[in-house]
């Protein structure tokens, strides 16, 4: 799509970059014991990973080609490869935010990789490996907008986010002068922003950057992140063996992480350091 970057990440938007069929080396004879989730993956030979599919740059499903792309998808594919599962054996499932804990607890998915913020309350229901990315709440506005430059300019503005999401709860609590608008998915908010029925869309800046890069002529991200969100890999509660394994993979895989970042979120040229994992 952009193709203007250097040649390090291959420049292609699809998986043409690293030799096509094997972007990540699939591990053989994975030494991981005491993990019920991994035992299930091993016996079936496949892994089910919960993802988002409406977040360009992070987790996105191209409806026309059926191709999934984004930073989260690549992280998920990498983790699966380290667990000995090739890309064609990954079953991606789109799980909306509200159903993530249930999906993990019920065993509908083995892992969840989809802008899943690590919080203390969620840690009571699921376990997290990572964080593998740190971002924070940002603002997306129309390119022509000159009045909203940061979160301080939200008084009297209509601010849109997903129903009940952390950013909209933050707006309700800490920005009482802004008018919250809620739709079930972010793309509806972006649509409302383009049509002018809302003034700004707010959620994690990483997600907003993805939307902005899809339509750089009409949209822009303004200000600095004003909260801290740490994305983790969700896994069933109590599977410490798997969590430790994934954390070690992230820690040892700094080069791979950087490569993934550069080929997805980093396409615009931004450089970010991989966050240190938190083996709690």
């Amino acid at each position, binding site marked *: 799509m952009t193709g203007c970057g250097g040649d390090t990440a291959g420049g292609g938007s699809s998986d043409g970059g690293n030799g096509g069929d094997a972007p990540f080396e699939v591990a053989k004879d994975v030494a991981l014991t005491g993990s019920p989730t991994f035992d299930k993956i091993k016996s079936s030979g496949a892994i089910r990973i919960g993802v988002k599919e409406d977040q360009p740059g992070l987790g996105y499903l191209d409806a026309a080609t059926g191709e999934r792309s984004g930073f989260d998808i690549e992280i998920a594919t990498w983790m699966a490869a380290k667990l000995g599962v090739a890309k064609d054996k990954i079953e991606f499932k789109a799980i909306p935010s*509200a159903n993530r804990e249930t999906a993990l607890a019920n065993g509908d998915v083995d892992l969840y990789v989809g802008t899943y913020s690590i919080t*203390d309350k969620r840690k009571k229901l699921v376990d997290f490996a990572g964080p593998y990315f740190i971002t924070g709440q940002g603002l997306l506005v129309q390119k022509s907008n000159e009045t909203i430059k940061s979160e301080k300019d939200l008084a009297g503005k209509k601010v849109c986010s997903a129903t*009940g999401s952390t950013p909209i709860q933050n707006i309700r609590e800490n920005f009482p002068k802004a008018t*919250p*608008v*809620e*739709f079930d998915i972010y793309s*509806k908010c972006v*649509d409302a922003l383009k049509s002018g029925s809302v003034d700004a869309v707010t959620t994690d800046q990483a997600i907003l950057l993805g939307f902005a890069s899809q339509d750089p002529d009409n949209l822009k991200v303004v200000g600095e992140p004003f909260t801290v969100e740490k994305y983790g890999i969700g896994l069933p509660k109590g599977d410490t063996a798997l969590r430790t394994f994934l954390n070690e993979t992230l820690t040892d895989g700094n080069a791979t992480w950087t490569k993934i970042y550069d080929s997805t979120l980093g396409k615009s040229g931004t450089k970010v350091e991989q966050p240190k994992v938190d083996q709690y």
Partner: protein
Amino acid sequence: MNIITDNSELFLTGFKNTGILFIISGFFALILGTIVAGMRVSPAPAMRAAGTFYVNAVRNTPLTLILAFFALGYPRLGLPSVSFMNAAIVGLSLYTATYVCEAIRSGINTVSVGQSEAARAIGLPFMKTLSLVVLPQAFRSVVPPLFSVFIALLKNTTVAAGFSVLEAGAIRAYLSERGEPMLPGLLWVALIFVVVVLGIMTPLQRYLEKKWRVAR
């Protein structure tokens, strides 16, 4: 129980907005439904045609679609903007009025022709025949179906959660982001709905049925 006390503000706001949606939409649906029912039995063919067209066009259109039109489509028409709450009220009223209309019309059909013939014989015009003679009798016989319509409306209000109204249907999404377990949260919401239906709506229906009972 912790869920509801820890998030009491959320539950209160949610059900307050559900109540507002229900009462205001219910009020407008009852008025509009009665008017349209009157149109559909009126002697003027144009009125009958308009009423019939409205009912048949709107009835059983998915409510989500109607609300999506008012919340997402309407702002693009460049007309004066309305809040999402009002948009939801308009959508719910228009949707529910068709069912109210049909329930009342079936009640009108139970009033024997002799009643309106007698009303006309003493010189009452159509509007008076309808409002003084036919409708009071019709309403008595349609209390049960009307209450079904209004209980459906009460539960239908939750659809507005998808269109930027913080009501009971949105509570689950909020709880989930706050890291609360989802099933107990959902059960509390469901329980409150059950209590409202069994504790308020059903007794009210029974009371009205008794009060307006006619010996046949």
